[in-house]
């Protein structure tokens, strides 16, 4: 960020982005609702004819729009936002925004098994990008404006600003920069306030009261994490295996792939209408103990299949809501089974469904911190943190053990884009000076080197063992050899480092 004044302007722009994103998300939700009511009618369980035909015809229309008019709107929108940040200097075209809005609303409203959050994220990012261009923001600010809008879009869609901020920081930006963080927070808050202004502050789910029945119950949550990790793997493997194969089919099939996926989802919907669309109302009902374990397990499995079909067909739409749906059903099923085995230590089904959502979020989307805070924010219940942490961590570890790269990273590579993987960056081994220095013990310096070292010490140029190689490179500029001193005893030489030592470490 340039000057302090620029930073302040950027924060004001972030608020503006939040308000516009909030308005866009409100309209997006209304559009989905209107399309659903128009196409399916007012009953919660529509007639069989509509269930079968509407998603297929909707898929055909969506595919035509995507292929002919909006080719950039395929997929969820998360990677497109990352691409805007890392590749296109924050540029997302208004055509993409309009296309994403229209096609996602039609796809979700017509019953495809996808969610509105990721598209909201991309719409927010796109609006922010357009706003940045109109306001002629400097290049660096323009780059960061897309994630700021993404946070606003996601916050309004989830009605959860903390989740949105954490997700964007954890998965899109990947670092905690004060300037960007302030803008992201402000835009998220502004968008949620705008959204609540129009739609009220009703949470996504009504969460039943919860308390940990017995410490041993944490074992059950660990089991949920284990199973959740397994289900996450199945889903990710299915998507990542089938998606490139569907894309490799002749281009004329792109017109009918979403229609076939729609027909498939509709066929499932004849018996299980719950799997169609985002399915939030059914998550709510699962949390309130409406379904038996068999039904919950069936819904979990069918949602995995239906969402895979919808997503790999190239239909625009998000994975957040299906992930939460799958997790809620899985959590409910685990609870219902556990209740039969150990009723005395089993908590309410709503708690397991809630934890299940976080578990699948950690397992599929591999955003562990976001997954924990999302559940706390959605439930408004801090006491659920222990089960969430246990289950999410287990699921995350299982997923990581058997699936090397996170889903969004794989999807980006399948699209031929090398976006930085936040997970890989988090886990990259941070090499420091102590890894490359020559230790003082047994050090044999030439006369020239001894001279250079004395010069550096006289000029008060030195390094500490824990400093990064990046710092070392800057210090070593124009100085071939630098002493490495002890932090507690600056007179004590612990080693020396030369430019070649650092360069020898470079990948």
């Amino acid at each position, binding site marked *: 960020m340039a000057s302090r004044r620029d930073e302040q302007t950027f924060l004001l722009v972030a608020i503006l982005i939040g308000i516009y994103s909030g*308005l866009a998300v409100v309209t997006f939700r209304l559009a989905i609702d209107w399309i659903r*009511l128009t196409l399916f009618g007012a009953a919660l369980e529509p007639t069989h004819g509509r269930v079968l035909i509407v998603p297929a015809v909707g898929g055909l229309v969506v595919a035509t729009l995507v292929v002919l008019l909006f080719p950039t709107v395929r997929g969820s929108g998360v990677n497109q936002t990352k691409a805007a940040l890392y590749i296109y200097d924050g540029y997302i075209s208004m055509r993409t925004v309009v296309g994403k809005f229209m096609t996602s609303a039609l796809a979700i409203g017509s019953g495809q098994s996808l969610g509105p959050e990721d598209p909201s994220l991309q719409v927010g990012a796109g609006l922010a990008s357009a706003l940045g261009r109109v306001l002629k923001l400097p290049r660096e600010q323009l780059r960061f404006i897309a994630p700021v809008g993404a946070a606003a879009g996601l916050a309004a869609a989830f009605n959860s600003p903390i989740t949105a901020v954490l997700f964007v920081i954890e998965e899109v930006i990947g670092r905690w920069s004060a300037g960007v963080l302030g803008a992201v927070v402000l835009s998220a808050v502004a968008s949620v306030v705008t959204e609540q202004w129009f739609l009220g502050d*009703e949470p996504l789910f009504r969460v*039943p009261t919860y308390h940990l029945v017995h410490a041993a119950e944490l074992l059950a949550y660990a089991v949920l994490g284990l199973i959740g990790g397994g289900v996450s793997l199945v889903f990710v493997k299915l998507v990542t295996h089938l998606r490139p194969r569907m894309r490799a089919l002749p281009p004329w099939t792109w017109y009918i792939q979403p229609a076939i996926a729609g027909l498939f989802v509709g066929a499932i919907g004849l018996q299980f209408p719950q799997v169609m669309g985002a399915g939030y*109302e059914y998550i709510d*009902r699962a949390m309130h103990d409406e379904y038996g374990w068999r039904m919950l397990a069936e819904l979990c499995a069918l949602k995995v299949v239906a969402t895979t079909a919808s997503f790999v067909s190239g239909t625009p739409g998000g994975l957040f809501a299906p992930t939460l749906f799958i997790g809620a059903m899985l959590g409910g099923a685990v609870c219902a089974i556990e209740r039969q085995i150990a009723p005395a230590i089993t908590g309410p089904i709503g708690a397991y469904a809630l934890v299940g959502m976080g578990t699948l979020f950690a397992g599929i989307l591999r955003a562990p911190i976001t997954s924990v805070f999302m559940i706390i924010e959605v439930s408004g219940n801090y006491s659920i943190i222990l089960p969430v942490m246990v289950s999410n961590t287990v699921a995350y570890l299982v997923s990581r053990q058997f699936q090397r790269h996170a889903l969004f990273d794989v999807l980006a590579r399948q699209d031929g884009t090398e976006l930085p993987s936040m997970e890989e960056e988090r886990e990259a081994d941070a090499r420091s000076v102590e890894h490359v220095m020559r230790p003082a013990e047994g050090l044999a310096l030439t006369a020239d080197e001894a001279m250079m070292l004395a010069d550096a010490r006289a000029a008060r140029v030195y390094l500490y063992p824990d400093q990064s190689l990046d710092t070392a490179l800057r210090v070593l500029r124009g100085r071939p050899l630098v002493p490495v001193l002890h932090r507690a005893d600056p007179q004590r030489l612990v080693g020396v480092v030369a430019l070649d030592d650092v360069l020898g470490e470079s990948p």
Partner: protein
Amino acid sequence: MVTALVPAFVIVNGLVALARSGRLKLEHEWAERGARDLAAGRAGDAADDYYAAQAYARDRGRYRLDLSHALIAAGRTNEARAELETLWSDAPGSGVVNLELGRIARSEPDLDDAARYYHAAIDGAWDSHPVAARHSARLELAQLFVERGLLPQADAELTILLADPPVDRRAAALAGRVAFSRGDYRTAAAHWRAAGPLDQSVSAMFDVATRAVALDPDARGITSRERVRRVARLFSIALEASRRCESPAATAMRDRLEAAAPNVTERTLSRDPDASDATLALLTAATSVVQSACPAVTADDRAMALVVQRPRM
């Protein structure tokens, strides 16, 4: 950009208002349909209707109570409990929510939850007719205690219910049962008398209780002559019962009673103060033997059994 916010707000506001009026219409339609279905006894359909109404309602808690009633009527108690617990988390002092939760909890082996919810309902807030609602909740709790054999607890609730006039007939009838189970037949008869017309089973119990009061030799305030008369009357009822019973054990007992009969007259009993107690001990044993072989037939038999088998100081 800032100026453009104004028309943007106006447009979105218009769209939201349009959508909201449509949803409001749907919400009312489904809620009315739910009420109709519930009134017609189609509880399952009513529950689905209320689910739909709830999906379109801006405040999703609005139909939760109606939905809970429909779910309870449809026998879907797990769902009803979850809906009610959600309502409870929003309003833990709600009388009606606590009452419904208490009703669901009464089917469970652990009584503590049910009693806790019922007491919360009694102390809770009610939108309409709070006095009557609390009274009714306390009566349900008393009934629950009676069902579980917790007579002192039931008695405590019934005492409160019957403290103020007018007398609640259902509470008085229940208090009669509690007193009867306790062996306090005089109080039982008094409660049942206050309760007015009784159903057939309670009416039979009332008859037995009245007879037991009339036969009780340990009743306070009776003269020694009356006591002797009652012992003699009990003896004759027991003898008659043994004569009607053909089992070998009853026959042996009848022989014992017949052998004792010449000494169990009002005159002989009056002469020996210990004879009445000895006779009552014999009657206790005789009733036990005879009624185990031949159940009591007449109201007098039952009244006599109640009197002689009651623990005596």
